[in-house]
């Protein structure tokens, strides 16, 4: 079984530090997701694990072996490239079995595995095509097939589903996850899509500007985000972050005339509440004004305003609330989060939360 241990890995190009002292462990058979906005260093981290980039500092271990100095071929990995990296002159079938041919897997065995993988990624009808004759999504599936067929203990994937339509993406997500668990692969999966991260991961590493912002399980990262950045990145629509102002009996949301939401000083702190944790009530609560509402089918996202601060509320069904309607918002104290306004760090030592 192949555990991946990344310790203090750093990559700098001249003065630009793309990956800055990143450390994490992907346990054997685990699916670890590298998540983050564009340009945060996800691909670079993956390429460092693959050995396609030389680390400026730090080490990579795969299966208990220090591979930092080893070439990619000696690391026993499979990889899906963000750009697919398909061989344009080879057919789909030849592309998929390329690695097997390199390793001189017998032809019968090759054909058998090709058959299975082609079924899996839905390319059985297209095996004789060239990459140029495929759609973007089909090309991506060829790349996926080429990685899967290797049955390597470690598989690295760089946004393998970014070009698929919503439905196919959902299917492939489940397929990849099932396959990874069945084969017991250790997988490092790069994405900027938090839904993908939440649905697939055993462990999520959220990167920001080359550093680890938060590393935790999906449950943990959703329930207790370590920073306000994490809080906004995970979940759609993102968590509402509201400035606080000291008032009678503690701190209230700035510019609201509502009740205290915090039992103590709240200056220089941000109150975080997820849209799905806000409820529209008939009595009590904090008063807000509807700005717009967006009907999504199963639920409605209502944009509201408290003073100059905007926030969104998610409610089940179709909420018909016109612009300018006043609403009362409530939430449970355990659903509220507190962050430092300047550093963005989660405050666990702050005053107790109050339900409005």
């Amino acid at each position, binding site marked *: 079984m192949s555990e991946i241990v990344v310790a203090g890995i750093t990559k700098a190009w001249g003065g630009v530090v793309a990956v800055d002292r990143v450390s994490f462990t992907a346990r054997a058979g685990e699916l670890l997701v590298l998540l983050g906005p564009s340009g945060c260093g996800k691909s670079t981290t993956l390429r460092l694990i*693959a050995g*396609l980039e030389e680390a400026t500092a730090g080490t990579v271990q795969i299966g208990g072996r220090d591979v930092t100095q080893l070439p990619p071929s000696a690391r026993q990995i499979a990889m899906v*490239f963000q750009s697919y*990296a398909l061989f344009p*002159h080879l057919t789909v079938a030849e592309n998929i079995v*390329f*690695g097997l041919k390199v390793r001189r897997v017998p032809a019968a065995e090759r054909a058998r595995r090709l058959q299975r993988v082609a079924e899996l990624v839905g390319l059985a009808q297209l095996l004789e095509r060239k990459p140029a004759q495929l759609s973007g999504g089909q090309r991506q599936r060829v790349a996926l097939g080429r990685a899967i067929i290797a049955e390597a203990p470690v598989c690295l994937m760089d946004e393998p589903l970014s070009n698929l339509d919503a439905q196919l993406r959902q299917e492939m997500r489940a397929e990849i996850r099932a396959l990874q668990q069945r084969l017991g692969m250790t997988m490092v999966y790069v994405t900027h899509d938090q839904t993908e991260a939440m649905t697939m991961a055993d462990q999520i590493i959220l990167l920001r500007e080359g550093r680890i912002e938060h590393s935790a399980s999906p449950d943990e990262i959703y329930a207790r985000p370590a920073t306000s950045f994490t809080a906004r990145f995970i979940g759609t629509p993102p968590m509402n972050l509201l400035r606080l102002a000291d008032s009678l009996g503690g701190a209230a949301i700035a510019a609201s005339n509502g009740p205290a939401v915090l039992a103590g000083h709240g200056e220089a702190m941000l109150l975080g509440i997820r849209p799905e944790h806000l409820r529209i009530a008939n009595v009590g609560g904090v008063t807000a004004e509807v700005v717009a509402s967006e009907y999504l089918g199963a639920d409605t996202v209502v944009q509201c305003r408290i003073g100059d601060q905007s926030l969104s509320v998610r409610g089940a069904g179709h909420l018909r609330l016109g612009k300018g309607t006043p609403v009362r918002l409530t939430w449970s104290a355990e659903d509220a989060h507190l962050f430092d306004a300047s550093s963005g760090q989660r405050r666990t030592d702050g005053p107790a939360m109050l339900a409005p």
Partner: protein
Amino acid sequence: MRSKGWGVLIAGPRAGARVTRSARNMAHLYGWLLLLPAAALLALFTHYPALGTIYHSFYSTPRANRPSVYVGLDNYQSMVEDPVFWQAVTNNLIFCIGTIPASIALALLMAVWVNGKIRGRGLLRTAFFTPTILPMIAVANIWMFFYTPDYGLIDQIRGLFGLPGFNWLGTRNTALWCLIVVTVWKEAGFFMIFYLAALQQIPPDLSEAAAIEGSSRWYFFRRVTFPLLMPTTLFVLVNAVINSFRMVDHVVVMTRGGPDNATSLLLFHIYEVGFKFWDVGYAAALTVVLLAVLALVALGQFFALDRRIHYR
């Protein structure tokens, strides 16, 4: 479509909706008038001489006391019986076999080398390309110096090992090979540029993907790089073949076809027949044969190889 656009342009915006017949004819006329200067030059200097050559090849060479007369295939007949012609054909074939594969292989090798991440590759690229930008005469003179008996570079080096001087260009067995070496040296740098350009079109992630699959660099070259370079190879090959039949300047400067016609190539033979012996009719017949061979080779290469090449 294009002519309609012209029509609108010429007839002006008011007549745009209904382009009249005369306006359309005007547009065609404009197109032809614009092409005329180039077409005229091409006809004057390329097509007319080519047709003229075919025509003249059926006529005898005019002499002071005897005008040119129609002789049918007589010129071709004497070609078949001319031992120097056959010598030139043989020489040219040896020249092709000696220069084409060697210069292409060398070009590819140099291109792959300078495409890698090596120190001072800019310098290396320039160095490889230098032979191409040197004037033919300069190239020939440099190599003449190398080949000079006793004092030349090669003989000086041989001298260090106690070997006697040797007349490289003056010996039947070596003269043609001396020309071959010079040509390979000159052509390889030129072809390298095309290979280098093509290599840089190949995305680097292909080699990364192959590296992860564990392929060796040679395997990758064989399965991926070389097939992707096939369009370039075809282009270079056609050029190499044409160049080897067009070779005349090095022959003129270095050996003048000698010794004993050992380095007489087809075009040099034509040049001698036409401008030294002034046998214009026979030279025309030789030229027609050369052109036919070149056309055939080019067509053959395009049709035979084209089908097996992946174009992006």
